[in-house]
């Protein structure tokens, strides 16, 4: 929509003195304007009502059929298609007369006899400024259209974004979240989800910036987290994959700070990965018992090979809660430009209010002086004792009913070499059972037992790792590194075989799980019973009807009813 700059300005010269009018028109033409002579008020009105391309009026005060100012009356002017500035000509020069003309809307004035070069200058000046005003009007119209389109797109994006988020709610007992978004889109997201084995996974993520651009970066985080947790993948695989996707699919200057947590209620372990987020606290009776600091860069920066998925692991305490927040909380400034900071957060926690989230939101508002914060604010509290309340009754009991599976089935798989490292066996099995229609609670049990059996087979049977390492300080990290080293040495001779059989037994039946590894076995008559899971049989013992270890110790059979 460009302004026609070369268009010759069109000027109406309104004067009933024909000779004078002709003179003015000829002069204006010689200066490069198009000049149209008009001899009456009535004729002027007619032209102005049908022609939308008049740029200027040179108007005599006194005409035969009226006073030039008539053309400036609001009700008359509103019927014109052209909005043109006016230069008035008259022999009169008294102040109050001039004032009256300007009050009526005259833009400039020439005293008769007309000075032609002065006329030309005044005409040029008015034509230029009228031209600029036209550009402004056109730009304003374009801007309105643009704004309307942008609003419509934002509404569609918001709808998609909210639909996706609704698929992933965090409606679990014991999980409380407070989210305050800076704008229509939040660049923060908080998700909680249980895996098939009953582990709880939590992610609090904060994308660079805020608004639509940040929200778009967050979407792959949401979909990957949800699908991988649902398939039973572990936390390290999940963070690695999210990182990989973000590096590939988002611009290099965009990344996502995140805290990812895995809680295994059976093993009673708490794993945290913190990349560029404020510290995560484990709190008991108002005291911060453990602080998980950010040890890593945000997701989406390091490429696959350099990405560090190292976790911080602690035993899951029986009482207390996990606290995580985004930096919208800790970095909110008050009037003195002081951050809210960890200190105030810890103070608020130490007071042990009945509702910590409400209390924090009040304190933050008092600190900032309003509830318009400079960034998205997200705060999450997780109480595992409430989240896993159901584990006290159903899943850990042995008296679940097996569904009436009438048909026998057998499912077996053998994986060897490096495939053992990259392929996750329990999710494979879980998928199969899901397809058969085995119910959720039973699948959870089977998954947990199988995961334990496979983990033992791989770590101890094949890789030869000793759980004694875990007891030492920094033991978990050392164990992890040694495991990585041993995994690289896997050869085709190393294998794990899994089989699941449904065996009818009198009027009932049972599921028999068997895991065999290519290791040398061990002295299974002396079972250590440490909580770091020597060969972690305590879990299997809890869930299975019976366990059998077959000589020389590299094969284990468990039956589940």
């Amino acid at each position: 929509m460009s302004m026609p700059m070369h268009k010759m300005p069109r000027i109406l010269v309104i004067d009933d003195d024909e000779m004078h009018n002709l003179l003015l028109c000829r002069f204006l033409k010689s200066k490069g304007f198009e000049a149209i002579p008009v001899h009456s008020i009535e004729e002027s009105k007619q032209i102005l009502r049908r022609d939308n391309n008049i740029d200027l009026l040179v108007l005599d005060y006194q005409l035969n059929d009226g006073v030039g100012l008539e053309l400036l009356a609001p009700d008359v002017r509103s019927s014109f298609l052209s909005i043109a500035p006016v230069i008035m000509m008259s022999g009169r020069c008294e102040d109050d007369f001039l004032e009256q003309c300007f009050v009526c809307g005259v833009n400039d004035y020439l005293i008769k006899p007309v000075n032609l070069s002065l006329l030309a200058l005044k005409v040029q000046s008015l034509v230029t400024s009228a031209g600029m005003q036209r550009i402004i009007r056109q730009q304003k119209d374009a801007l309105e259209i643009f704004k309307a389109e942008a609003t419509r797109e934002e509404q569609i994006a918001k709808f998609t974004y909210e639909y996706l988020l609704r698929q992933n709610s965090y409606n679990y007992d014991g999980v409380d979240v407070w989210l305050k978004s800076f704008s229509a889109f939040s660049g923060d997201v908080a998700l909680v989800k249980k895996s098939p084995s009953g582990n709880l996974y939590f992610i609090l993520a904060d994308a660079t910036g805020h608004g639509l651009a940040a929200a778009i970066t967050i979407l792959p985080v949401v979909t990957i987290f949800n699908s991988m947790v649902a398939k039973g993948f572990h936390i390290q695989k999940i963070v690695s994959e999210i990182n990989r996707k973000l590096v590939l699919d988002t611009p290099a200057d965009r990344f996502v700070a995140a805290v990812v947590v895995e809680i295994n209620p059976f093993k009673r372990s708490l794993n945290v990965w913190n990349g560029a987020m404020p510290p995560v606290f484990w709190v008991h009776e108002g005291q911060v018992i453990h602080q998980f600091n950010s040890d890593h860069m945000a997701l989406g920066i390091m490429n696959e090979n350099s990405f560090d998925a190292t976790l911080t692991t602690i035993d899951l305490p029986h009482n207390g809660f996990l606290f995580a927040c985004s930096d919208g909380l800790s970095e909110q400034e008050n009037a003195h430009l002081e951050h809210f900071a960890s200190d105030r957060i810890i103070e608020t926690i130490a007071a042990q209010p009945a509702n910590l989230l409400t209390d924090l939101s009040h304190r933050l508002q008092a600190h900032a002086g309003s509830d318009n914060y400079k960034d998205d604010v997200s705060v999450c509290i997780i109480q595992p004792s409430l989240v896993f309340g159901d584990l006290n009754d159903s899943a850990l009991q042995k008296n679940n009913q097996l569904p009436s599976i009438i048909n026998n089935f057998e499912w077996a798989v053998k994986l060897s070499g490096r495939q053992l490292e990259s392929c996750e066996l329990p999710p494979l099995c879980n998928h199969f059972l899901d397809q058969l229609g085995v119910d959720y609670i039973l699948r959870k049990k089977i998954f947990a037992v199988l995961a334990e059996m496979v983990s033992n087979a791989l770590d101890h049977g094949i890789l030869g790792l000793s759980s004694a390492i875990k007891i030492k300080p920094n033991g978990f990290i050392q164990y992890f590194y040694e495991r990585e080293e041993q995994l690289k040495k896997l050869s085709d001779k190393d294998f794990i075989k899994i089989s699941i059989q449904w065996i009818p037994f009198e009027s009932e039946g049972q599921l028999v799980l068997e895991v065999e590894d290519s290791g040398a076995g061990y002295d299974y008559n002396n079972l250590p019973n440490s909580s770091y899971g020597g060969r972690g049989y305590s879990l299997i013992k809890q869930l299975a009807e019976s366990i059998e270890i077959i000589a020389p110790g590299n094969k284990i059979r468990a039956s589940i009813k």
Partner: protein
Amino acid sequence: MSNIIQLPKRFDYSAMNDFNATINTVITGKHKKIFLDAMLMDYIDSSGLGLLVMAYKKIHESNSSMTIINLKPSAREILLLANLQKLIDIK
């Protein structure tokens, strides 16, 4: 052509165009080492961190090294909180 780039007082999204243009120019000079001088930098936010990461990747791809020098304590703290020192050389 100098291999030292001055970071502005306020290093955020508004600095993007100028900063990226400067990086692109300096890269053509084929220096072995490129320095980012943070002497004037009072403020950096996550957009600024993003710009640094992007610059690092470009410089790395053109077989040069990037070092950030003269960081003020508050700015240094922000870079360390984001663990940027794991990727970028900070003096």
